[in-house]
């Protein structure tokens, strides 16, 4: 018999009251309010744990590592009580043919009802021989597990876009999941890695609402990826005021000025870092003094150096600085960069006028 998450909690001695509180907190962390809490409570009380098969292709395991950093819910609770993680190279006890048996049993037993989570991607060059777990090309394993999956989660930038091994010249022809599997719903959770609570937030959402979350045109859940890092950045007022870090560890850096001129890709990066933040909401790259490198964006490795700022592009009049993910879409990230540059220039010029500080103007486009 299946046991529900609620059963488990109760039998551990967790009170009904604590359970309700847990549901409220989870709902709050997802921004769902009281009605959401009700739905979560119902789901937790009635559903068996959803089987999850978690495969690894070419990758670095940063997604799995990020996943276990989750604070709410705890990774422990996700793995023991929310899902049934039936296959995971990183965590499972069995190895070799016992591991493969676990995979096959889950596919057979839960046909059409399991979630396939993919970390990394398949290399397609030369018949896929650059990743051959089990003595066979990973792409075969991926297709096999995808065939009967209910939905696929592409964890991180490898599975979503290709990431570092797909950077030019992509010697192994590393290919994101959606270009190999085209007949299943796929939710992309990009980032290198994605934020832990974004990962568990999406899992919790799917379990609770029994559907994939609302997604943008590129297949990213809007709840975490519909705004730019720049939009919610706590250093944004410094950007607007034309106060920029000019060098690492300069006076501006020590006061937390805007890192745009140090190459920050926050203005063109759709992710929750500046809002949700990392490691239990503690910080995010900009807060710790380094520009965003744009790790959740497609092809971010090949968009110029991490310390070059986005200025040399003509303003295309597309979307403008305040365009949304959907409007700016696949190709216009650079356009947004140019608009941002223009905005930075304008704010800096305003500043300069009011303060007669010529150096502020001259530094904008240097």
């Amino acid at each position, binding site marked *: 018999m299946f046991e529900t998450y609620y059963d488990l909690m109760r039998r551990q001695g967790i009170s009904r009251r604590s359970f309700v509180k847990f549901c409220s907190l989870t709902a709050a962390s997802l921004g769902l309010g009281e009605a959401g809490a009700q739905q979560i409570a119902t789901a937790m009380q009635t559903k068996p744990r959803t089987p999850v098969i978690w495969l690894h292709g070419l990758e670095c395991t940063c997604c799995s590592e990020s996943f276990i950093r989750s604070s709410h819910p705890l990774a422990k609770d996700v793995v023991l009580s929310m899902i049934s993680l039936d296959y995971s190279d990183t965590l499972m*006890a069995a190895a070799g043919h016992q591991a493969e048996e676990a995979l096959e049993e889950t596919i057979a037993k839960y046909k059409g009802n399991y979630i396939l989570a993919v970390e990394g991607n398949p290399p397609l060059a030369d018949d896929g021989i650059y990743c051959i777990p089990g003595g066979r090309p990973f792409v075969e394993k991926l297709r096999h597990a995808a065939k009967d999956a209910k939905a696929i989660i592409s964890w991180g930038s490898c599975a979503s876009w290709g990431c570092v091994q797909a950077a030019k010249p992509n010697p192994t022809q590393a290919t994101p999941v959606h270009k190999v599997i085209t007949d299943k719903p796929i939710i992309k959770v990009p980032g290198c890695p994605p934020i832990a609570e974004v990962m568990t937030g999406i899992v919790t959402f799917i379990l609770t609402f029994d559907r994939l979350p609302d997604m943008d045109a590129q297949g990213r859940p809007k709840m975490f990826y519909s705004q730019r890092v720049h939009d919610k950045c706590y250093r944004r007022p410094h950007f607007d005021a034309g106060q920029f870090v000019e060098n690492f560890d300069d006076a501006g850096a020590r006061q937390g000025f805007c890192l745009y001129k140090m190459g920050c890709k926050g203005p063109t990066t759709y992710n929750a870092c500046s809002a949700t933040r990392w490691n239990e909401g503690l910080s995010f790259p900009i807060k710790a003094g380094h520009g965003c490198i744009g790790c959740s964006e497609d092809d971010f490795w090949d968009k110029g150096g991490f310390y070059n700022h986005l200025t040399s592009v003509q303003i295309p009049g597309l979307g403008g600085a305040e365009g949304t993910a959907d409007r700016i879409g696949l190709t216009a990230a650079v356009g947004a960069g140019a608009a941002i540059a223009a905005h930075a220039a304008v704010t800096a010029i305003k500043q300069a006028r009011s303060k007669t500080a010529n150096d502020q103007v001259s530094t904008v486009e240097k």
Partner: protein
Amino acid sequence: MSVIETQGFKLDNSGKRIVVDPITRIEGHLRIEVNVDDKNVIRNAVSTGTMWRGLEVILKGRDPRDAWAFVERICGVCTGTHALASVRSVEDALGIRIPKNANLVRNLMHSTLYAHDHLVHFYHLHALDWVDVVSALKADPKRTSELQQGISRWGNSSPGYYREVQGRLKRFVESGQLGIFAKGYWGSAAYKLPPEANLMATAHYLEALDFQKEIVKIQTIFGGKNPHPNWLVGGVPCSINVDGTGAVGAINMFYLNMVSNIIDRTIEFIDQVYVPDLLAIASFYKDWAQWGGGLASQNVMAYGEFPDIANDYSNKSMLLPSGVIIGGNLKEVQDVDLKTADQVQEWVTHSWYKQGDETKGLHPFDGVTEPNFDIGKAKGTRTNIENFDESSKYSWIKSPRWKGHPVEVGPLARYIVAYARGNEEVKAQVDMVLKTLDVPITALFSTLGRTAARGLEASWAAHKMRYFYDQLIANLKAGDLNTANVEKWEPSSWPAEAKGVAPSEAPRGALAHWVKIKDKRIDSYQCVVPTTWNAGPRDAKGQIGAYEASLLNTPMVNPEQPLEILRTIHSFDPCLACATHVMSPEGQELVSVKLR
């Protein structure tokens, strides 16, 4: 079928061939094949890295200041290690000296990784080789509590606590959905712990899973996120501002206090949970002090880590020293030189690459690599391999050698080198363990020794976190706030050509990146990483590497259940994404892979 003798080992592949693929609970993709004799003793071992990503090819032509971010993505488990090796190498090439604070923050971030990575390895990647989770259901919570209280003063130790954990485990098992525990080797005679020890360790598996996410917050504070925090050529990206204007926007007392608190809790967890568990579990597995040694009693190497003096990577500065021991001669520790052409070299005789003369090794500054997937006499086809053939090419990993010798690297190697160099801290720790377990020093050269060294090093690292923190505060108190040297930040300040390499020690062992810069861009980039040293295939002389050597002569309880193989291979903490790499320093195109 043949018998080969090398390095004092006898390799006999005439017995039954066992394949374990995937080796799980590691980073990346690894396959192990062994032959067992009629008594189920391992007589031959073959280690195959089954993935390749080509990161070094990708780095060619990039800005050397960006390299850390690329190579950091070599591995998300030892996150940050490759970034550290990268910034050090670029700084060496360009003659950049980092400020004292930057050295301290790097040491803090890196010792944080040691504590975290070793802890997660022990509980989440290695423990299930020794701990029978299902047996924990039979434990008496009261006696488990007594066991716990007898070995440490850790707070979560009441009978009620263990009853609760056991109850949760029971419901989990009864649900019929065993998840990550499905198809485990539960009930095998190879498991030796009493139910109470199994319950204690299972409880700590869960506690460690909760706690590990706290340790890494130190990397988040200084690097913005974990996994994959930020680094910087010339220092660290985070500015420090203790009480000046805008201090709230930088590393300030709020964050420093948080770091201090996490350090205290990390020391507490490792010293009160990890190390006592390690010793308790080891006491039931003392027979593993005779198996799994492999190269450990012969050749070990460390590059050294944790420079006490900024920009000084010599043994005068390194808190864990560098050195090489050959032939088990602990009285003579030789010095490592990463720039000398005849010390570190890589062979591709049995790797899926080709180079001009495959009987010769190449120094990383001169290395040539072209993929050449050729399964030779393997059984099966190139896309459906049944058995690899160790006389052919059989791995994506190369075979690095020090002056032609295969060596083991990692926590055990570091501890043997430190012990032989007379490091008092390490000596005291090692002697304590030998005394507690009542085993001779030769017990170190084993699977158990390797696992114990990692635990001791986790404790050492946790205490060093405190040391680095105190140094940082003292330096701030002295009025030095600098965290980055940007004198040579602009590429216009660089020479037309430069090359550099610097030593580092990843949690898994000796790591270095060799970088050549030409016209402000990366001309070549080569990483020789710990798992390459340990997991690499045979070389031109037929010498075996550390993984293959370590498996030899180990008896298996049941060859169908590869627990013994997992124990020894996991004792190295494999990281396969790290191990498989390539570069093409002269800029030649990668050739397409030819079918044989």
